[in-house]
């Protein structure tokens, strides 16, 4: 097991090497976060909608994704779908992550939408708005606000899950740690170091989400 000072030394020595992977981890998380949120919102609306087969379709998607491991989904998308569409490495990884977290985000949004009092939909309708208009103008803005804390949580998960992209040759943080481990036979040092990277990013991100929540809470009485 490595000593504390050794870990610190190696951290400083390999710091430049980790910069590009760090960026890639951010890119992966950001791309899949945005796409995942869009997917999640679409399926949440589908699930609460009255479109024929809509709720069933949403259920099917959520069941399939929640019922299978992310690493399996990543490999299926990376090696399995290439004949249908060759997405390239970055987008295979991002899309796998997005499709994965989309299922959880859909449930977050659905919960938030259903937590808004029914009376608001009725009020909107009685004012002459269509159900879609009421959803867009009245319900969704409130629901989105309520979704912020669980969404933040989901993004933290996503950030950490992006480490699985190491297994499809993406050179992100964890992949760099594995490469340095294999090079130096000094595994524990680099696994501890990469843990620190993730921890720092998560702490920073947690702080951002908290700030955002406080900002949005200003309107509440």
């Amino acid at each position, binding site marked *: 097991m490595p*000593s504390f000072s050794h870990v610190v030394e190696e951290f400083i020595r390999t710091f430049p090497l980790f910069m590009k992977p760090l960026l890639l981890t951010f890119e992966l998380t950001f791309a899949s976060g945005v796409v995942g949120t869009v997917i999640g919102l679409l399926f949440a609306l589908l699930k609460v909608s009255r479109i024929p087969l809509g709720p069933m379709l949403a259920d099917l998607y959520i069941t399939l994704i929640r019922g299978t491991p992310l690493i399996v989904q990543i490999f299926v998308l990376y*090696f399995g779908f290439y004949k249908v569409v*060759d997405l390239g490495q970055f987008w295979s990884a991002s899309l796998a992550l997005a499709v994965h977290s989309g299922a959880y985000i859909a449930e977050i949004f659905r919960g938030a939408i259903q937590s808004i009092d029914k009376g608001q939909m009725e009020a909107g309708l009685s004012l002459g708005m269509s159900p879609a208009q009421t959803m867009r103008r009245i319900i969704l803005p409130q629901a989105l606000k309520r979704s912020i804390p669980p969404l933040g949580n989901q993004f933290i998960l996503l950030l950490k899950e992006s480490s699985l992209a190491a297994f*499809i*040759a993406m*050179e992100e943080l964890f992949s760099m740690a594995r490469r340095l*481990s294999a090079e130096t*036979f000094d595994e524990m040092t680099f696994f*501890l170091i990469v843990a620190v990277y993730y921890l720092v990013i998560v*702490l920073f991100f947690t702080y951002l989400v908290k700030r955002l929540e406080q900002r949005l809470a200003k309107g509440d009485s």
Partner: protein
Amino acid sequence: MKKKRNILSVLLLSVALLAAGCGSAETSGNNGDGQASATSDTSSSASSAAGSSMTREEGVFTFVSSGEFQPFSYYKDGQLTGFDVEIGMELAKRMGLKPNPVTAPFSGIITGIKEGRYDAAVASHTITEERLQQVDFSDPYYLSGGHLFTRPGEEITSLEDLRGKEVAVALGTVYEQLAREYTDNIKTYDSDVTALRALDQGKHDAVVTDIIVGDIAIQQGFKIKATGVKFTEDKQGIAVRKGNTELLNKINEALRQMHEDGTYQKLSEKYFNRDISK
């Protein structure tokens, strides 16, 4: 604000404690260097292994391979088999030990040996200076060489052509090191076969791997081709924990016997139609 700083310092402290606590375990596993070698010379071939501490579990020979390196180690009908695995089985038999084949991702095998998780790695490790600093190696049990594979239609005819190309390799292999000498654009997978599959799908320009493994993949219909570009000839050895001379000597002795009575030849021909130790 103050509260947050407290949390941070607690976190840092716990990491420090963790690392410090772990540091003390460093010394174990290094003993038994001298005395082991003294006894091993007298005990010949498959004598009693009882009372010996050369394996992690008495009377059991735990040997590791990746299980993802056809035809050296792979699963056939759910059963781990392959050239490496059969060599390991034969070694166990000759040392009078019960064989216990296990698998682990290739990049973690050397560390597993160091930490005593396995007795030996019969995993097609090329004997290198770097690895010799971590573990001890048996006499070479076969010879091989890295080979450059590419896609049909790709014009790579020399190592120099690799510059600017994207090369996929299995993490922690000598082929990874070789490739890094020629290009920075390296993509790593957990196994050579996965890297070859990615090449087959056109995700990369080239793969460096063992010539035998690449040829098998071609036979299985992978859309890849051998470039004819060879790297230096490699000697493959069986790795054991540093200082475990007793086990090492027994392995070498068993290997020698296998060559003498033709068992090795038979095994090699079964998989490769030739003697790969030559």
